[in-house]
């Protein structure tokens, strides 16, 4: 633009200049958080290339030389890894089968409680365990089940004369304990979504069912459940998508060498390879982590795709 041409006219800044004038503050605002976000979320993501590189101490997080799929070939033949992979799938599918329907049933029953004060009380107490630290949950569990002083062993001993059992150390009980504590911690909280869905049902549907002579059980079976089915489907698909991500911290807290045959999952295996083995096999552990991360990503996007196809709802 030549200045003399614009003599006597009002100079309008170009669209680009106007855009910058309007919005530079917004960009300035997000600059620090964005860089911060990239540093702590995306740098480690690229750090995954360590899975293909040899690690040397004190040379930074990206390794020193390429080794290709060496570590992948190693862990695919590693019995420890195969055991961990199987344990992960077993534990999380058992957990899904048992702990998926329970919050739905809980929400359906809670919705039938018409005394509002009592309902509120139940909600308060059943949501609370979600906010208790896993450490506290497992500590309480350890005390309840303690072979010397725990209340369960004392009860069984006094009433049936059974010998005390060290439940936390027995492989046979690990999976049940994992599932029961999950139930205790998350049933109330997971029910919130279903409760909201139930509350959203048009009252006229129930009215119509009542006129047709449906009792409360029939209303639940023929009105409530079919209406919340889309929500149930979406939640189920999501859960399947997260099949590989178990509560790693809880498993680590419950892990003992004695129950490791069932309690060693992929994440604890990565943890042990990376931090507890004498050699700090960072590259090897990264390779395993990357492998399970990619499977997880495939599961999540597959689940999301299915959800969009089947219910028209995609979550992400």
């Amino acid at each position, binding site marked *: 633009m030549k200045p003399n041409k614009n003599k006597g006219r009002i100079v309008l800044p170009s669209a680009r200049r106007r855009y910058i004038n309007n919005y530079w503050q917004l960009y300035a605002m997000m600059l620090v958080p964005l860089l911060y976000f990239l540093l702590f979320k995306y740098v480690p993501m690229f750090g995954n290339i*360590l899975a293909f590189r040899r690690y040397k101490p004190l040379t930074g997080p990206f390794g020193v030389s390429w080794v290709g799929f060496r570590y992948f070939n190693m862990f695919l033949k590693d019995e420890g890894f195969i055991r961990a992979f199987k344990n992960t799938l077993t534990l999380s599918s058992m957990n899904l089968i048992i702990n998926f329907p329970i919050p739905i049933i809980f929400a359906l029953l809670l919705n039938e409680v018409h005394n509002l004060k009592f309902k509120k009380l139940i909600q308060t107490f059943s949501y609370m365990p979600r*906010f208790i630290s896993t450490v506290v949950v497992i500590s309480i569990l350890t005390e309840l089940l303690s072979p010397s002083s725990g209340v369960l062993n004392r009860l069984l001993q006094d009433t049936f004369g059974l010998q005390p059992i060290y439940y936390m150390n027995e492989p046979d009980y690990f999976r049940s304990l994992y599932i029961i504590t999950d139930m205790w911690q998350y049933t109330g909280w997971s029910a919130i979504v279903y409760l909201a869905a139930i509350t959203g049902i048009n009252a006229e549907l129930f009215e119509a069912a009542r006129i047709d002579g449906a009792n409360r059980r029939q209303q639940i079976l023929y009105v409530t459940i079919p209406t919340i089915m889309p929500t149930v489907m979406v939640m189920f698909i999501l859960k399947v998508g997260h099949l590989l991500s178990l509560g790693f911290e809880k498993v680590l807290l419950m892990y003992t060498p004695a129950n490791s045959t069932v309690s060693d999952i992929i994440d604890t295996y990565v943890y042990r390879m990376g931090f507890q083995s004498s050699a700090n096999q960072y590259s090897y552990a990264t390779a395993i982590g990357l492998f399970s991360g990619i499977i997880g990503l495939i599961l999540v996007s597959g689940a999301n795709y299915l959800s969009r196809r089947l219910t028209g709802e995609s979550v992400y």
Partner: protein
Amino acid sequence: MNSKRVYRIKDRSPIFTVIVYTVMFFVLLVCTLPFLYIIAMSFSSSDAILKGKVSLFPVDFSVEAYRQIFAYPHFFRAYKNTILYTVCGTAISLVLMVLFAYPLSKTRLKGQKFVMKLVVFSMFFSGGMIPNYLLISSLGLTGTVFAMILPFAINQFNLIILVNFFKSIPEELEEAARIDGLNYFGILIQILLPLSTAALATIGLYTAVFFWNDWFYGLIYLNSELFPVMLLLRNIVNGTTMVGEAGGVGDKASVAIAVKSAVILTSTLPIILLYPFLQKYFVKGMLVGAVKG
């Protein structure tokens, strides 16, 4: 709702009501009994615990366990550490997330969609445990307070809750403020933040609970003088750390049980006490987050 009254008689099914209320009482018991048990243990005398007399109420009321943990310097240190991580972590987190979420709520901003995609993608694929650890250690953060605070300041889930909240505020409010000569920083601070107290309380609480409950990152990043209280508790329970005279045989072993119970209780007390008053914020956050982003 006149019609409701007419049909209510048919609705009444006593067996059904009995089942519902029985199940709900059971749920109530299951949620509270473990805590009652721990409270009872922590206030009982070691003699009563050793004889297996304690179940739901303290026997031979005693505050010996609390006397012991309050005399144990590591407990206070760990507690102070946890408070420090929670307060600083939550504050930094809120500032960064507000500054990030506000621009991201402006869909007409160039690049906004792309950054949102980056945020969502990072929820489903991340650097694993080892790359994260190596980043923290090569930044020189291991063994410092910052290792517990900085890496967790931006939580994608909470960020999306906040972005959606900012989107829901009517644009007209901002336009009026623009005409009055406020810039975006002014709008954010003077107009939006006062409207967002509920949303900020919600994500602030989630963040605070996260920091309060964390132990694993303390385990891999810190050495013992910086341990948070949850990590100390874990070490006491699995026997890595002994408290006071505890850990011996006989009488002392049962002191250990009372002491463990007292640590369990005191470490989670702030959450148990505050939670009932803040419950509505938590639930609100859960529901906003469940709505598609």
